[in-house]
């Protein structure tokens, strides 16, 4: 750590140094010192002259800076006390309304007083450093990151001695045994993770992601009121978010898991406006169709309905499905058609499922080949 004097690295002629400190031959032309190093043609003129600040030469200015810093630090306790007062004095329900701005008075008061208290410590300290602390630039020499050759040799010698003393070179099997032992002892800790969750075997998949609680005869109900749906209650162009009636039998985790798969969209369209393939003719009731609400892309519940185009848009990634064409993908990153729920009417005139979904709902997964799912133009 030296001062600002740059010693022989500075303006001394005829020798200069390039930025890596190598000696070069220099000469001075027109106030500029050049060097014979083709890569660094201009010699280092050395550090710039230090210009004193106003606070260095004018004691009045220094005093002023001192007063500023002291005032800032002095205001900190004021804000801190204000914080405490506001914490205990301002009721939680009090609000501040200022035009379109609206906030809790307690929140606003606590935040601004605490913020100002902290901020003033910072600004005061920086002002002190900038105005009053010495601002002479200083120079530290760097050392290459690499160790010296002597250090390298010494450590190698010591390592070698240690290896020798441990006798590992003569008793290699023992060394391998240790490595193996440490390696194997990690296995139990990996095994601990096996109970993170069930292993998604074929059987587990079949009763989880491949099935829903929909089955033949389950009524379609409104997803908020849980009132069963009747065909005559649904107008052409109307969309109803539905759930299976048996969702109400479930509690807790099972209910959440069912709700992640069983939601449906019930829409009524003019049968003359839409394409109904021959194989799905009896999946609908007078133009009322039911589709899974779960996007086949990553599983968001789809909800944005374009009545005139019969398109259903997912708000997450904008996959768009044509509900007038068996739920095929017309735009976006989803690859599979929206699964359609076959529906009919029960003896009391309510909409019910004819059977469960014929394909799994939600995102594709590796173990199932989805190429045979419904595609545009199939019958």
């Amino acid at each position, binding site marked *: 750590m030296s001062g600002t004097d740059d010693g022989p*690295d500075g303006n001394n002629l005829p020798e200069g140094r390039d930025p890596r400190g190598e000696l070069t031959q220099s000469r001075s032309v027109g106030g500029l010192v050049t060097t014979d190093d083709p890569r660094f043609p201009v010699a*280092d003129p050395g550090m710039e002259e230090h210009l004193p600040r106003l606070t260095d030469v004018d004691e009045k200015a220094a005093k002023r800076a001192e007063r500023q810093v002291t005032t800032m630090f002095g205001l900190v306790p004021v804000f801190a006390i204000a914080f405490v007062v506001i914490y205990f004095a301002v009721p939680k329900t009090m609000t501040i309304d200022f035009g379109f701005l609206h906030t809790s008075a307690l929140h606003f008061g606590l935040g601004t007083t605490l*913020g100002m208290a902290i901020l003033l410590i910072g600004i005061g300290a920086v002002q002190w450093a900038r105005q009053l602390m010495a601002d002479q630039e200083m120079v530290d*020499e760097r050392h290459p990151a690499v160790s010296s050759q002597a250090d390298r040799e010494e450590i190698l010698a010591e390592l070698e001695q240690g290896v020798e003393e441990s006798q590992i070179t003569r008793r290699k099997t023992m060394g391998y045994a240790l490595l193996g032992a440490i390696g194997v002892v990690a296995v139990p800790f990996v095994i601990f993770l096996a109970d993170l969750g069930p292993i998604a075997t074929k059987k587990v998949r079949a009763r989880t992601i491949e099935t829903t609680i929909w089955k033949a005869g389950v009524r379609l109900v409104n997803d908020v009121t849980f009132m069963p749906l009747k065909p005559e209650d649904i107008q052409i162009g109307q969309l109803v978010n539905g759930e299976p009636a048996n969702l109400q039998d479930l509690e807790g985790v099972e209910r959440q898991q069912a709700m992640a798969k069983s939601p449906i969209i019930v829409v009524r369209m003019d049968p003359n406006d839409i394409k109904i393939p021959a194989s799905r003719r009896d999946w609908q009731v007078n133009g009322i169709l039911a589709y899974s609400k779960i996007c086949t892309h990553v599983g968001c519940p789809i909800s944005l309905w374009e009545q005139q185009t019969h398109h259903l848009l997912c708000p997450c990634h904008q996959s768009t499905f044509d509900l007038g064409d068996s739920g095929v993908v017309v735009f976006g990153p989803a690859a599979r058609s929206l699964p359609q729920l076959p529906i009919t009417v029960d003896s009391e005139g309510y909409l019910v499922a004819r059977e469960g979904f014929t394909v799994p709902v939600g995102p594709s997964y590796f173990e199932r080949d989805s190429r045979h799912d419904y595609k545009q133009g199939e019958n």
Partner: protein
Amino acid sequence: MAKPAATVAREADLADGKTPPKQFGPVFKAASGPAGWADERLGLASLGKHNLRKIFPDHWSFLLGEIALYSFIVLLLTGVFLTLWYQPSMDETTYDGTYQLLRGVTMSQAYSSTVHISFDIRGGLLLRQMHHWAAMLFVAAMICHSLRVFFTGAFRKPRELNWLLGVGLMGIGLIEGFAGYSLPDDLLSGTGLRFVDGLIRSIPLVGTYIEFFIFGGEYPGDLIIPRLYMAHILLIPAVILGLIAAHLALVVYHKHTQYPGPGRKESNVVGYPLFPVYMAKAGGFFFIVFGVITLMGALMQLNPVWTYGPYTPNQVTAGAQPDWYMGFVEGAIRIMPNWEWHIGGTTWSWNIFLPGVGLLTALFVIMGVYPFVERWVTGDKSEHHILDRPRNNPTRTAFGVAAMTCYGFFWMGGGNDIIATHFHVSLNNVTYFLRVAVFVGPVLAFLITKRICIGLQRASEERLLHGAESGIIIRHPSGGYEEKHTPITAEEAYTLTQHKEYVPITVGGDGTDHNGVSKRDLGKQKRRALATRFYFGDNLRKPTRAEIEEAAAHFDHDGANGHGHGELEDGHSNGHSNGHSNGHSNGHSNGHSNGQAAIGSDRDDLETADR
């Protein structure tokens, strides 16, 4: 008071030829007791003597990393407070707190306690918003810091490992942010979790298994929030703390890089000492960052979870978007075409896997390997402590801007629905445009940036050889006009020529040493020659000593008048500056490239031999 006595003692000592005992100030007198006590047990004096006055260079761009560090400290502080009230449980409860609109609603305890913190804990909302703003700032500062490091070449030897630590910090920071974002279990963050479920499921071969492991069964289960909580407050912060410690230790060991300038050399560091200047400046800056985050938490609303409502798997809101730093992944997922493969009874969901896992992996792999690619191209084995001006490495700068452009278009994709609704354009067209733009945009950005850099190189050369424009127009008796130029300072001339210059290498010419190279080696060399041409082929060569001397002498002769170089007078201007720039940029660079390559590579070999 004690002055006369001290003077007497000093005189007596001097008379004896002894050094007088040093007189310490009042601070030391007060601290000498405890300090001595501690030193006897900890050896503080020896520990501190090398580091207490360590020099750090001064520049605003060095503050970016500090912002990241300080916001992390704020995250730890505010996070500890939040854990006092937050309940990481997905068990259902009925809300009966202050917020009327949610009273009687069934929700998870996680969501209920988050609303409780926001409305019933005094200052709870402040802590929550400070925590969230600090997280935003943490990621933003890390990204800006990494861009600063990238564009100035601070990742070069010996700092490659520190760059990798930084890349790791950024990757883990994103995951940490996402984990925290999911904890309130509101409708928006729950939708984010559902997306993650689909993302994991898309991983070929093992996706379904990992999904069941992470969620403890079928989505959503009741384990994911407690597990994310553990990761968010224990596992990941511990890793981040460890990485930060290593990151900072390496900064101290390598000493900070510095920008070029007079007196700045590869072998030194110029700046201010840690004590007292940087303790005040950096410590003060911590409080400034802390204070600003507090004010942001007080005045700027963020993530009002009470308006979103509790998460239920059959609901979603329009305009659903993640926190901004996940926007680029979200965008990639949105604009990806719906590609799916079916092979032998399996489904490969490229439409989710590529933009999700693939893009994140690509980003961090490319960032991680870049320093090593550039080192292979330059073949430079020396240490670098003087930062590059971005213009002096146009290809690197262009790469960086291209990557930023690509990121930007992906990020825009994350808001394609917002763009469509706000600007009344077709959502489909926005998506189609972005599908092309993420590929074409970076190429254009690369070409434009490279040209701008080379233009800036010319501007630097112009200043070096022709001086600075004085703004004074002189009219000649003949009627012509010219602008007076003034010579630049020696300091600036040195700054402009201080960078290390790389030149393209040639194979089979006289440029490289190839005594008995095999065919494979030749191929390797050819590849490298091509890479160096791509990297440095268009660079402006530094003016030679002769050119600089000539220009300086020119000023000398003309005295203060400064014979014009940017004349408005036609004939003169053409004759002089065109002649010069041709001769320089073309003739000079081509003419010299072979010869200089030899010098360049010899020098590099010498540098390694020195070791």
